[in-house]
């Protein structure tokens, strides 16, 4: 029953994709000769004017270009012409660094805040004010103080991914069931052992949910940040290809950003499943 449902859902997905590609192809194909002009002039005007071809690339153009990229993902022809693999690797490395730094800060800090009602109340106003700030608003300050565009981008990732993790850790730690804490107390389990054997496993699903939200936000923000700082990365690639007026490459980049974002989310989803316990 479930397998048949999955099979049917898969078929519908494929049908939808085919329909989308079909409509896309039909909407962007050449409509034949649109205007007659001398061959010299036609060469100058391009296919859009002579054959009524849309300025938007069709799925076949994108597919061909994508295949070209996939054949050579890691070439490096200087600052403005690097393979997509290299650009993605730069972005993933920035996200990974900023995100890991945020994990290292947010989880221990969240533990402390969650276990101490005093700290929780004292830090709450700061967190409430800092949380809604758009991460890109930090960029000028980061550039001014750090004086390095690449590290500034990492800082922006750090600052945007810290909040969901911090708040979820605080919430998860503070809402561990009283009875589990009481079990540890009646067994005279010390604070440190209690934190690792009761609070951490009990709060882990909530913490992992926060980490999953964070990685999503970090991946959203890196594209915008790299458009600003430039140099390398998939965000810079999108902006560079826009300046080259290569809509095909922009579409390919959009597709890859989506796929990488999905993979990052799936990895965190798998970790979440590993620590989730049935009650």
């Amino acid at each position: 029953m479930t397998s048949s449902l999955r099979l049917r859902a898969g078929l519908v997905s494929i049908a939808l994709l085919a329909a989308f590609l079909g409509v896309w192809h039909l909407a962007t194909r050449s409509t034949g000769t649109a205007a007659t002009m001398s061959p010299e002039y036609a060469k100058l005007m391009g296919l859009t004017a002579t054959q009524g071809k849309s300025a938007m690339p069709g799925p076949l153009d994108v597919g061909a270009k994508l295949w070209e990229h996939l054949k050579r993902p890691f070439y490096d022809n200087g600052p403005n012409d690097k393979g997509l693999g290299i650009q993605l690797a730069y972005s993933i490395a920035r996200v990974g660094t900023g995100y890991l730094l945020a994990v290292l800060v947010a989880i221990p800090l969240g533990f402390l805040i969650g276990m101490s009602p005093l700290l929780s109340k004292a830090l709450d106003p700061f967190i409430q004010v800092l949380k809604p700030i758009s991460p890109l608003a930090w960029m000028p300050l980061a550039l001014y103080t750090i004086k390095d565009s690449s590290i500034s981008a990492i800082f922006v990732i750090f600052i945007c991914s810290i909040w969901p993790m911090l708040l979820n850790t605080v919430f998860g730690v503070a809402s561990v069931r009283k009875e589990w804490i009481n079990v540890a107390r009646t067994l005279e389990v010390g604070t440190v052992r209690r934190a690792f054997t009761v609070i951490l496993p009990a709060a882990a699903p909530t913490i992992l949910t926060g980490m999953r939200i964070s990685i999503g936000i970090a991946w959203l923000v890196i594209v915008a940040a790299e458009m600003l700082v430039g140099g390398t990365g998939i965000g810079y690639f999108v902006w560079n290809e826009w300046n080259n007026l290569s809509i095909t490459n922009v579409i390919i980049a959009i597709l890859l950003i989506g796929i990488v974002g999905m993979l990052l989310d799936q990895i965190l989803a798998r970790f979440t499943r590993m620590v989730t316990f049935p009650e």
Partner: protein
Amino acid sequence: MSDKFISIEAIAKRYPGAGGATTTVFENLWLSMARGEFACVIGHSGCGKTTVLNILAGLDAPSEGAVIVDGQAISGTSLDRAVIFQSHALLPWRTVLGNVAYAVSSKWRSWDRAKVKAHAQSFIDLVGLTGSEHKRPSELSGGMKQRVGIARALSITPKMMLMDEPFSALDALTRGTLQDEVRRICLETGQTAFMITHDVDEAIYLADKIFLMTNGPGAVLAEVVQNPLPRDRGRTDLHRHPLYYALRNHIIDFLVTRSKTFTAETPDHDPRNVPVVHIGKPGLTIASNGEEQRQTWIPGPSPGLTA
């Protein structure tokens, strides 16, 4: 007094209420138990039974007064006093064995893994869960979960067991089986046990002493009823004992009417010297260190009424 293994002395619990007023759940509560005794507390919700148990466990601190266990005033929780929680409170990410082993390794920190496992296993066997040690709590029935709770409490070989309505969430059949097990284990190991219950029959079957508490707020310990049934009582012929109904009726009368009216009707109630009620057996008094303790006698059924 040296024969008091547990002595609750003049404890009170107050909470700050609305508008600066304080709500007194109970005050000046005195209660004592001998070693190896099984005591049940009966009273309506809100009379502070659970608070008394939490104070005994060390999970809660009294606003006034002290609790003395084995000659020492308690402060905080202790591995000597094991708690069986109403909601079993198993750690859901650990297996049955993991839950019991957690308690064992908390008591004996230096034991190696194999020794902890063997010790935990022996208590899992004791409560009849052999074969389920690698299951998670979510895979167990309510009765099995509570068995794990009992195994966990027993595995640390405590001086006393504190049970907060341990069987109230179970069906009647499972409850009966677990009562049998708890009674057998407590008799075999000479365990001192303090149990809160709402179930009059449970109290009659298990307890040596039944504490009756009036309604809160301002609850008092009204009476200590000495269970007249023999120590080797069996579940099946319990109700045939000539004093069974006298005892049961006395407790139910208390719960239905006297728990509300007791404080008004007994203005001279001395919380330090709570009357010990013996059902239908005059002449068997509990000596209380020379102090003259007030004794109340409830007559058993006349021979003509006994079937």
